[in-house]
């Protein structure tokens, strides 16, 4: 009779499926995973320490370097926190432009996350299709902001560049193409029998577990947590009639499908913004003052919070950043991966929660 032994299987820190270094220690009994521990600390930047004592003009550029995948939202939340501290108003046109750039960034991030998942379950064809589509999204981000990744688009009281009518028309034409492609990719994902085998009913996290670990973003929404999208509370999104997407399955399939659905939603939001884009200035101006505030925004992975304390010259005296991956990685290790029936599902389940190690370690 074959003897079953308990073994500890390390995954990473350097692993073909990981985008960034992280180590998972899985304790298994045969194929069943009994316990998983996540080891972090391979790419600690100490960026919060670097930010302290610097003027906001420098911290603004540092903030978006916390994460390369969702840099726009780091820029946006930092700037909106500074605006809250200093009571600076944003012109309506700038507020709509912020939403356009933020949604383009969300689309790029969601498509990359789904690429990673497809690559992990070895559906490389769909993975490469998705990367190809992401290029079009990044081209549009570059068209508006002049940069593909670290855009530094938002500043206190407005944005740096206006959206020209010819650029808006080109972007809308590109979005039609992106929408068609994503619709085709979603159909491949939804109907693929091998994808279903690797995704449906795997890595299930219940709503209660999701709440207990304070999971956020698509990970929480895929487990049926209502009102977990902070865009519901953002004034510009509310004006656009934003509604949260929620699924109840709580498995890998649901997490990926929520992201696909949110890409369609982002396209709709951008179209609405272009349609309703008010005339007027893109910069209102204002001075950054002394104060203290904590402000949250909805990043592609969920709730991103900046707690900032400034002095009268706008220097950042203290800053604490809580990124969404902190909550999602913990829930993944202690809820989704626990009791997985095959060690092969560990990587795909971990990737399905879209972990951002750069955000997590800051």
């Amino acid at each position, binding site marked *: 009779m074959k003897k079953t032994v308990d073994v500890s299987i390390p995954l990473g820190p350097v692993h073909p499926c990981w985008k960034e270094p992280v180590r998972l220690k899985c304790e298994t009994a045969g194929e069943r995973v009994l316990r998983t521990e996540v*080891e*972090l*600390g391979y790419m600690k930047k100490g960026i919060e320490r670097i930010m302290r004592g610097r003027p906001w003009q420098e911290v603004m550029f540092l903030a978006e370097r916390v994460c390369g995948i969702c840099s726009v939202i780091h820029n946006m939340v930092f700037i909106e926190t500074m605006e809250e501290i200093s009571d600076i108003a944003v012109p309506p046109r700038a507020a709509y432009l912020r939403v356009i750039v933020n949604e383009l960034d969300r689309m790029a991030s969601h498509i990359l996350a789904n690429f990673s998942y497809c690559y992990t379950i070895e559906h490389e064809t769909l993975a490469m299709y998705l990367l190809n589509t992401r290029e079009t999204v990044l081209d549009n981000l570059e068209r508006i902001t002049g940069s593909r990744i670290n855009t530094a688009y938002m500043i206190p009281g407005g944005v740096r560049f206006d959206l020209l009518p010819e650029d808006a028309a080109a972007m809308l034409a590109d979005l039609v193409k992106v929408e068609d492609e994503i619709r085709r990719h979603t159909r491949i994902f939804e109907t693929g029998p091998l994808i279903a085998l690797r995704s449906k009913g795997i890595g299930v996290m219940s709503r209660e577990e999701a*709440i207990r670990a304070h999971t956020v973003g698509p990970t929480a929404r895929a487990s049926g947590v209502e009102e977990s999208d902070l865009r519901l509370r953002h004034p510009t999104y509310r004006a656009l009639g934003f509604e949260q997407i929620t699924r109840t399955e709580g498995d890998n399939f649901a997490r990926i499908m929520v992201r696909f659905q949110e890409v369609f939603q982002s396209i709709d939001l951008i179209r609405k913004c272009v349609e309703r884009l008010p005339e007027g200035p893109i910069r209102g101006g204002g001075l950054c003052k002394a104060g203290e505030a904590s402000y949250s925004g909805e990043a592609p992975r969920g709730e991103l919070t900046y707690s900032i304390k400034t002095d009268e010259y706008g220097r950042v005296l*203290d800053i604490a950043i809580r990124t969404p991956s*902190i*909550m999602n*990685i913990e829930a993944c290790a*202690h809820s989704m991966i626990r009791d997985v029936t095959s060690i092969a599902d560990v990587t795909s389940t971990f990737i399905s929660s879209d972990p951002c190690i750069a955000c997590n370690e800051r």
Partner: protein
Amino acid sequence: MTGYLYEKDLRQMKYNILTSTKHDEAVRAIAQRLGLTDAKLRMVLIRRFDMSLLENLGSRWEMGQQYADNNDDPVAEELGCELFTRFVPLVDPQVMQSICDETRAMIGNESSRDEAIARGKARIREAVLS
């Protein structure tokens, strides 16, 4: 046998997580609720929790404040039965259950309610430090 340096001692990294601004606030609040010193609680957390659980400590504590022990059981609420087993897993659920049952029995046996709760909290402290 060659061993990895980072596997030998993670205490410094775990301590760095716990002493960051937001985590420090959470640790102080938990220590106050349990009646422990901050240093002792930090020691327990470093020994028991992995790094991802430590990183998520503040969020779990917040959610615990909001959702734990909302079932109209004043004893469970005062002792933090769900809070310290499911949200911030510092006590084994079976041990916590026995502490809760004993506390309820003490209250039923006509001893003072405050005394019974204080005894229960003392046992929770013992369980956390064990």
